[in-house]
C-alpha cells in the first residue's frame, strides 16, 4: 500500500496488558497499525514484555525496514532493552510522539535504530545435495538451519508436508497475549495449541464505572475484529468511539454513535460472511459478533455484566482444528474474552 508522507504506519509490539489500549490508535486519522512490521516505519512497544518474548520483540524490531524509529508507551522494564523514545502520557501524547518519531527518522535516517539481532543465518548454507538443500534427495538436510518438514496424511489421504509454526506474540490479527502453535498442511490447521497470557489491565487508566469499562473493552475488541475482517474504515470508527469512553463522556451522544456503528457493522455484510464459522456451543462467529454488538448496547444502557463465560482452551482448539488459517483468525477475533492460562502453564 502506498504511504503518503502524512501517514504513519506503525508496527505494534504490545504486552498482553497494553494490547487493548493500543487499539485506540486505529481511530486516529493518518496513523495506521500496519499488518506487518515490514510495512511500518515506527515500532510501538508498550506494556509488559515478558523475558521469554524478548527475542521475539527484537526480531519484530529488526523486521522493520531501515530507517526505523521506536516509541515506547508506558513500557515495563523488559522493553527497555530496545533503544526507544519513551512516552508516559495519554493517547494524544502517544500520537504526537509517533508522528514526530517518523518525521525525525525520515529527515535524518542516521537517527534510525540499529539491528538488535546478529545478521547471520541460523546455519550456514552448505550447498550439499542435488538442490543444495544440505541432504540427500528431496528430504533430509537442514537448509539454513531449519529441518525439512515431516509428512502426514491430509484429508484426501495423501501424505503431504506439515509446517510447524507458532504465530505470536506480536502478530497483528491475534488478540493480545495470544500465541497460536499450529501444524499447518496447505492452509489447513491440523494441530492447534492456544496459549494466552494473563494481563493486568490496571496498567492503563480505566473509567471508574464498570459499564463504561465493559463498553470500552467491547469497542476495542470490535475495532480489532473489524480490522482483521478488512473493514478498516469501520474499525477506525469503533476505535474513535473507544477513545471517547471516559468518565466524563457525553453518554447520550456515545449511545447514539454506538448504535450507529452497530447498524453499520450489521449492514456491512460481515455477519453474513461469518455464518457457520467456528461454532462453539452452538453459536457461530456471526452469532458472537451479534452478541458483542448487543452487549455493547446493553453496557451503554448501564448494565456492565454482559459477558458470558469465556470458552475454555480445549474447546477453542477443537474448533480451530481442521479450519483454514483465515477462518481460525476470524474465529479468535470473534471471541470476546480469551481466558488466560494459569501463569505457570504458559511457556516463556
Amino acid at each position: 500500500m502506498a504511504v503518503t508522507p502524512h501517514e504513519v504506519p506503525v508496527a505494534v509490539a504490545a504486552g498482553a496488558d497494553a494490547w487493548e489500549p493500543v487499539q485506540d490508535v486505529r481511530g486516529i486519522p493518518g496513523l495506521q497499525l500496519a499488518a506487518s512490521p515490514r510495512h511500518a516505519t515506527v515500532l510501538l512497544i508498550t506494556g509488559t514484555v515478558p523475558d521469554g518474548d524478548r527475542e521475539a520483540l527484537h526480531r519484530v524490531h529488526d523486521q522493520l525496514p531501515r530507517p526505523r524509529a521506536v516509541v515506547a508507551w508506558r513500557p515495563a522494564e523488559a522493553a527497555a532493552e530496545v533503544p526507544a523514545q519513551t512516552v508516559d502520557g495519554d493517547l494524544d501524547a502517544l500520537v504526537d510522539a509517533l508522528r514526530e518519531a517518523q518525521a525525525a527518522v525520515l529527515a535524518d535516517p542516521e537517527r534510525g535504530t540499529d539491528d538488535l539481532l546478529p545478521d547471520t543465518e541460523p546455519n550456514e548454507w552448505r550447498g550439499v545435495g542435488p538442490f543444495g538443500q544440505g541432504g540427500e534427495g528431496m528430504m533430509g538436510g537442514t537448509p539454513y538451519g531449519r529441518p525439512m518438514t515431516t509428512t502426514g496424511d491430509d484429508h484426501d489421504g495423501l501424505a503431504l508436508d506439515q509446517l510447524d509454526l507458532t504465530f505470536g506474540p506480536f502478530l497483528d490479527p491475534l488478540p493480545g497475549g495470544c500465541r497460536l502453535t499450529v501444524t499447518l498442511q496447505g492452509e489447513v490447521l491440523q494441530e492447534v495449541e492456544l496459549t494466552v497470557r494473563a494481563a493486568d489491565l490496571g496498567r492503563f487508566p480505566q473509567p471508574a464505572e464498570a459499564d463504561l469499562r465493559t463498553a470500552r473493552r467491547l469497542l476495542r475488541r470490535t475495532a480489532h475484529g473489524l480490522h482483521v475482517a478488512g473493514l478498516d474504515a469501520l474499525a477506525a470508527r469503533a476505535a474513535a468511539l473507544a477513545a471517547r469512553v471516559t468518565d466524563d463522556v457525553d453518554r447520550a451522544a456515545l449511545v447514539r454513535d454506538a448504535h450507529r456503528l452497530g447498524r453499520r457493522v450489521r449492514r456491512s455484510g460481515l455477519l453474513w460472511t461469518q455464518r457457520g464459522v467456528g461454532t462453539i456451543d452452538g453459536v457461530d462467529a456471526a452469532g458472537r459478533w451479534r452478541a458483542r454488538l448487543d452487549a455493547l448496547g446493553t453496557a451503554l444502557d448501564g448494565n456492565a455484566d454482559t459477558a458470558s463465560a469465556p470458552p475454555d482452551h480445549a474447546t477453542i482448539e477443537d474448533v480451530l482444528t481442521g479450519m483454514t488459517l483465515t477462518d481460525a483468525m476470524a474465529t479468535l477475533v470473534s471471541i470476546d474474552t480469551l481466558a488466560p492460562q494459569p501463569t505457570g502453564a504458559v511457556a516463556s
Partner: protein
Amino acid sequence: MLPAFLSSLTVTAAAALATAACVIAARRTSPYRSTAPQRVPVLGGLEPGTHAWSRFHVRYYPMTLLFIAFEMEMMFMYPWAVVFVEEGVTALAEMGMFLGILSVGVVYAWREGAFRWQ
C-alpha cells in the same frame, strides 16, 4: 528470416539490459541490505520450526489438466477448420492424430477423478 527475428531479439536484449540496470542501480544506491531476521517470514516475532520447502496439494490441478486438454483442442481446431476444405483428408488424419494424443490426457484426467463431482 534473420531480420524478422532481429527485431524481437533487440527487444528481448533491451528488456534484459534495462532489468539488469535497474537491479544493479538499486544495489549500488540503496544504503540498506536485508538482514537474516528480515528474511524470516513474519510470524509475530518467532521463527518457523521447519523449512518452507514443502509439498502441498495443488487442488486445482485436475481442473487445469482438463482446461488445457480442451482449450488446446479448440485452439488448433479453429485454424484447422479454415484450411480443412482445401487440405481434405490429410487435414482430417492430422487432426485425428492430434485428438488421439490429447484424449490420452483426458483419459488420464478421468482416471484421476477429474469428472467426479465431489
